[in-house]
């Protein structure tokens, strides 16, 4: 078994972080989730998830440079760790394995 269970929302946030690369911070993640999944998520939920992921070692964070638009406050950028990537891969693999075990009839029925 994997040491860490990755929740559905956690997975999405982790994926988005991986996607955004060096530009992943609270606001950009929120917007990306909204844009790509249509979900409206509060910033607090994002931060809560981010800090949980960081605690699990899936994300790293660092403070960016001084910005003008945020009253001078720096952004906290998140980058996915190698371990994070590994976990994402494991999740994907597991899903694919599971998918492959579904008899094709069922799928056909379902898609009709």
């Amino acid at each position, binding site marked *: 078994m994997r040491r860490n269970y990755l929740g559905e929302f956690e997975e999405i946030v982790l994926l988005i972080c991986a996607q955004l690369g060096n530009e992943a911070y609270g606001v950009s993640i929120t917007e990306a989730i909204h844009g790509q999944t249509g979900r409206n998520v*509060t*910033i*607090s939920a994002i*931060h809560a998830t981010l*800090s949980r992921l960081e605690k699990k070692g899936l994300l790293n964070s660092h403070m960016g440079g001084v910005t003008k638009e945020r*009253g001078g406050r720096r952004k*906290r950028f998140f980058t996915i760790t190698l371990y994070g990537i590994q976990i994402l891969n494991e999740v994907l693999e597991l899903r694919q394995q599971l998918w492959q075990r579904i008899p094709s009839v069922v799928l056909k029925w379902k898609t009709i």
Partner: protein
Amino acid sequence: MAAYSFCCIKMEDNLNHKKEDYNRPPRWADHFLEWFCSSELLEGIQGDLHELYGKWIKRMGPVKARWYYLFNVILFLRPFAFRRKKPHYHVNYIAMYKNFFIVALRNMVRQKFYSFITLLGLTIGVAATLFILLYIIDELSYDKFHTNIDRMYRVGLNGKLAGQEIHVALTPPPLAQAMVREVPGVESALRMWQWNDVVIRYEDQVYTEDLIFHTDSNFFDFFSFKLIEGDPQTALKEPNSMVLKESMAKKIFGDGEKLGKILIFSNENKAMKVTGVAEDPTHNTHFDFNYLVSFSSNDFGESDQWLSNTFPTLFLINENADINEIVSKLNNELIPKYVGPQLQQLLGISLDQFLEQDGAYGYFIDAVKDLHLYSHVDFDLGTSGDIDYIYIFAAIGLFILIIASTNFMNLSTAKSSGRAREVGMRKTFGSSKKQLIGQFLIESINYSLIAVLIAILLVIILLPNFNLLSGKDLEFSYLLKPGLIAAVISLMLFVGFLAGSYPAFYLTSYRITEVLKGKVTKGMGGGRIRGVLIVLQFAISILLIICTILVYNQLQYTQNKNLGFIKEKVIVISNVDRLNSNRKAFKDALMGESNIVAASYSNSMIPEVYNTTVFRKPGLEEDHIVGVYFADHEHVEVLGYELVKGRNFSRDFPSDSTAMLVNQVVVDEMGWEEPIGEKLISYDGPQPLELEVVGVLKDFNFESLHANVRPILILLGNFGNVMSVRFKMDDPKEAISLIEGKWKDFVPEEPFEFSFLDETFDEMYRSEQRLGTLFSTFTILAILIACLGLFGLAAFTTDQRTKEIGIRKAMGASGFIIARLMSTEFMKYILIAFILSIYPAYYFINNWLENFAYRIDISIWVFLISGVTALVIALLTVSYHALKSARINPATTLRYE
């Protein structure tokens, strides 16, 4: 680091906010977020929120956006965002504190001179304060050890007879029983009748003893004095039984058996049986005793004479009794019932008539716990303190502490300006402001800790000297009470905190960049505060100098004032009735000596003329109360009274048995134009007696100078129990041995008791004298501490201006100009301090002098002298450094870079 930069940004933010309000999210919501959000997450979260807020404004308008912002802030109320007690990252705090201590020590050692001055001043200050604290605690502790102290009261008599007011702690014998019997709420009562000068014999030992009390059998129930041997319930029940205090018992019986021994009271020729030995009373009681005798030994205890006010009555009330009701019961029921009829018998008028004729007769009460500090009555047992002196000492203690901690503050702020760079470095390496403040506070608390420890040592060492000075018997163990220890510790922390607060908060608020560029190091931060503090120190010092000088002047005045008699070279022998039939022979023998001027018998001796009697002018009804005593022909010569009119008693006039000498106050009171030959009628005996004035004495201050001279007259009689002898020798010891030798010739086995008149009079001012000594001691300490501070500061300014002085000298300034330059600033402060201290000093000392009927005038010179003294002392202190710096060769100071 994070916190610091954040700080700056926030400030900018605030500036923007002022211009365009709605572009910024609601501030209180932000504050709320800042309050609960952990600091390492805050910046990121708040930044995100602010960024979103900008978008929300565009989408939903500012009003909604604000609410939405708050809503989102509230959503952050989840555990992950909360502040944690400990930060995530681990810092080696132990190493940090270790470093603080090392740096503190290094600083102390590097600046030996300043550290020494700081510590010395602080130590003296704390030690002085501790002494004062001990003194005050002792004064406040009087009689507090009695279990029932809160319910104990003493009755005294307040009255007015023939225009003379009396306020005495004296009550009649039947009062105690009447109170227990008839006044509800009174649980028990106790009488304490003091006898002094009692001759006690045990086998072949003879002692003259004081502090002997006839007291009721419930003595040990009433007070919490402890009985070591004997039964506290019955020890004082039987007639002729007595209890000794332990040290007395040891003195008389040694280590042998004590109970059941018989002592003889020679005065009455009574045998007393020892029924108990009591623990020595602690010194902090108003009811100090040597011997206790059962009241039943004396018939007077059973007397029903309500007008014989002889001793104090003490009583204990029930837990819930109302003391006011008891007092009103005493005055409104007991007095009319018992005193009234006897008054009628004596004066021939009823109580109501007596009261109508401007008389007064009432009992007053004092709580026993207040007796020592608040009660001022005549015929009091024991000596009493004065709450005013407690306040004065507390004020002085506070003053000294203020001066000492001010020094500490001044020196540490001055020194710390050299450490701005250290602060800058520490900040660069990530010290937070909090940690830096902590560092400076720890450093200064270090100082105060060391000072307090040394001070405690000093107090222990110097306690005997202080006891000598204050006339007390203090022990260091008084300070070992938990409350006091806590007080001393908090005092230490407080002083340390106060002194360290300026450098801690001021230095740490510099910006790193400026500090490291060297902009701040040059300025001697806090110059103005230091100025204010110096003014404060010297204002207090000058105030103390003025008060000390005036207190001394007053004491000198009271001791040297022409009292109207000559108190020097007079020996007073008491209990001369021991001579029995040898009285005349003894006197003649003394008069025959060439070194004896004269000897005289009298029945009272100044300053104790207690006997007062009613006199009337012939044919008039008006009462005059006049002090009176009997003396023989030589009395005027012995005491050196001055006759202003008429003549002394003379053996040439047989009619002198009805003659009297009066003082000028009597003449004034009677309104006589030509006093000689005037007559007064005495109502003291069974029949009125007509007396004639033969001489008028210049007023002599036979009591303390606190009071005005009372009317007094002297009648002829040679039966007195006191003898006064004026001698010629310069060495009083010779006089004693001569007179005692004569005494032994006549009555070898009787004790010879004497005192010197001048000592007796000086004794009356002992409390003032002590005040004077203590006052001046503490004043000197205060000035010393203030000067230490000034000395340190002067050294510091000179240090800082070394180069300036060098340049000035190079440009041709003379040494004098440099010295003036260096001292002007300090002199200015002292002048201001002088001006500020004048009024408070005048106010205090004027209040104190109100206590004296004969007092000095407050002269302006005293103020000027005090001011000049302070100025000169300060100038000397400062000039040492000023001159030193002025004398340095500029080449040496300018070369060092």
